[in-house]
């Protein structure tokens, strides 16, 4: 069996999750505490990937990043970034696709904290950023873990977006879910089954681990 698609999938999920965490923390923080009028619009945009068919998302990204268009051309010329049919493009698309899965648990965790907690840190002289990292985030570890795991697992499971923007280039964009589709198309059911089984086991064991950790945390605080 060719392990390359599996490794590529894990690489993609890992990088996507790490970058997503960096983006999602400030975003979730803003969404949790902002009273801005634009908040519902940003919230809707963040949640769009939950309801939008992945192919729609992939299609628009494909159009936007195509070097035949102004934006894609600008990216290509000035930054040397070609986001279609490339690994970087997959990472970017996956980040958008999995954004709500990371943002929503963190936002919910922050909202659930008593507001006195951050206020007492402010009164002690700490800035909003220090308070976020030293007080708020350490107290929503379970939410952070849910966000990380959901984003990771969801990236492993994506198909439509990847196919639209990444295509099927071995070693570059051919992730496990694409490989399964590819093998089935060539009536190679046993190879498809191997990939499918590996994905099944990986996602199942991730979720079991999370539930065990959450269960232990609950027992400790109870």
């Amino acid at each position: 069996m060719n392990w390359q698609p599996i490794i590529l999938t894990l690489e993609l999920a890992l990088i996507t999750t790490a970058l997503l965490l960096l983006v999602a923390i400030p975003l979730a923080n803003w969404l949790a505490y902002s009273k801005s009028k634009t908040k519902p619009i940003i919230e809707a945009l963040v949640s769009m990937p939950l309801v939008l068919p992945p192919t729609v998302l992939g299609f628009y990204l494909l159009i936007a990043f195509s070097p035949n268009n102004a934006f894609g051309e600008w990216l290509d010329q000035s930054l040397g970034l070609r986001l279609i049919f490339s690994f970087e493009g997959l990472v970017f698309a996956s980040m958008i696709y999995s954004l709500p899965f990371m943002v929503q648990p963190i936002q919910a965790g922050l909202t659930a904290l008593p507001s006195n907690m951050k206020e007492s840190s402010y009164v002690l002289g700490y800035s909003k950023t220090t308070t976020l990292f030293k007080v708020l985030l350490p107290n929503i570890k379970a939410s952070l873990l849910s966000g990380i795991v959901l984003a990771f697992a969801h990236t492993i499971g994506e198909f439509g977006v990847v196919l639209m923007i990444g295509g099927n280039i071995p070693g570059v964009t051919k992730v496990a879910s694409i490989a399964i589709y590819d093998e089935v198309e060539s009536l190679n059911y046993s190879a498809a089954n191997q990939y499918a089984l590996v994905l099944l086991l990986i996602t199942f064991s991730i979720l079991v681990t999370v539930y065990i950790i959450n269960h232990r945390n609950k027992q400790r605080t109870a």
Partner: protein
Amino acid sequence: MIELKVRKTLLSHQGKMELDVDLQIGKGDFVVVGGKSGAGKTSLLRMLAGLLNPDSGTIKVADKTWFDKGQKLNLSPQQRQLGFVFQDFALFPNMTVRQNLEYALKKGASTNIIDELIDMMELGELESRKPDTLSGGQKQRVALARSLVQKPKILLLDEPLSALDPEIRAKLQDYLSKIHKAFELTTIMVSHDITEAIKLADRMIELDNGSVTKSGTPAQLFGDAKLSGKFQFTGIVLTIESQDFLNILSLVVGKEVVRVVVDESEAKKLSPGDKVIVASKAFNPIIKKL
């Protein structure tokens, strides 16, 4: 020391309320702010701390302006350097008792103050415990200690003892009185409890519907002004017994059950469960030292 003149429209359970307060508080005063819930007591503290912005007015502390709507001046909570103890303690659950205090320590400051406070508030045995494992009274001592680490000049307390039972409450009142003197604080405490106020306050303020309705020393508010040579309690009738020509009432007053003799005509009007007033004139009660 503190000159505060603020206005703000607050949204309360009963609808809109205009908070309009003009207060001057002297250095070293222990001020207790009383009044019904929703009268604006907490909002007043939050405005002083910079956690809530007045619609208009000024706040000056020790000749320094903290807030001036006209001049668009508003110090952030971080810049005001005061101690604030929240009603629900607001300890950081991810840190131990000691770490909670250390978090409050300014960079480069000596840790002596932490040891001193741990000693003073008798937190030694709890030092390495997390807040979730502490009782209410213990949490409150930690919160109090944490608010003092930076040696603030002003301490704000938002009903700090309301969640505690009477014995622990009395003990914490002693702590409060002790630290108020030891740290030469100007203390402003919100409290519903009149005995607590009389015990601790140099000055009491009563807020009603957003404005100050009474202000003065406890003696002025509860002493001379109301001195009538009579004291009274309210009680609830438990039983009414007739013995020969006497009628004996058993009453619950506070936590005590007392028995009093009552006139027959009065006894006929009463039935168990009724609320009554037990009053006595100044010359007939019996006083015994406990």
